[in-house]
């Protein structure tokens, strides 16, 4: 069973839709079955089998939920840096689909925010808010939508 911090049903289904859309870009299709408490989600593969918690597809799915809740405001539903709050920031939020950064660097930016890395101060540090697993998951999600990853 995969435990997630889900603040609302709306966020969950927004993320489910987002993940389904984005995962069409990748290699697998997954679907989620929220339980009655709305605090746990089982992630199933295309054949209906429960995905192992430590599988890449499960991480990407969980990362989609994290992304839809915390990142989408600035980076946008398409992860292209065109979220509704993007206009507040100069430079604009990163287009994650076109990013050339590796997983470790993306994880560092998520954890520490942009400023310590000499990047935008608009990117908050998320280490206080997200667990290590959530940060790893959102990095997996970003990797899954990254065009350069798919062109390799």
């Amino acid at each position, binding site marked *: 069973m995969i435990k997630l911090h889900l603040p609302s049903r709306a966020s969950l289904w927004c993320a489910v839709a987002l993940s389904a859309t984005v995962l069409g870009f990748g290699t697998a299709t997954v679907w989620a079955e929220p339980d009655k408490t709305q605090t746990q989600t089982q992630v199933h593969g295309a054949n209906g089998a429960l995905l192992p918690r430590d599988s890449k597809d499960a991480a990407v799915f969980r990362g989609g939920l994290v992304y839809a809740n915390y990142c989408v405001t600035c980076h946008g539903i398409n992860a292209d840096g065109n979220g509704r709050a993007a206009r507040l920031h100069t430079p604009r939020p990163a287009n994650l689909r076109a990013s050339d950064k590796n997983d470790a660097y993306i994880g560092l930016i998520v954890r520490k925010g942009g400023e310590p890395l000499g990047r935008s101060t*608009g990117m*908050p540090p998320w280490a206080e808010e997200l667990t290590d697993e959530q940060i790893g998951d959102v990095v997996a999600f970003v990797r899954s939508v990254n065009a350069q990853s798919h062109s390799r």
Partner: protein
Amino acid sequence: MKTLNLIALAAVLACGSALASQEHVVAQKDKSFSTKKLDIKVGDKVAFRNDDGFSHNIFSLTDAMPFDLGTYGSGQLKTVTFSKAGKFEIECAIHPDMRMVVNVAP
């Protein structure tokens, strides 16, 4: 005499301005704003004070006067002067469930 009159006029205007504008404080505690709705007037200031033990990032996308206070930590406050009338929806970029409304009357 003329100079004295100008000084007196400036003092009156300054006092009037000070009396007209007020400063309000909205705290952020337990990932919530201390109030869900605040009614103020144009020219009033609102200090957004972080009483939590972690960072917040207050912003508004209201067309009349969008703003972003950036990320700031525990015990800090940042102040916004609302120079335009309207309904301002205030959010936190780090905690998406944090929302409040500031109604600014002309």
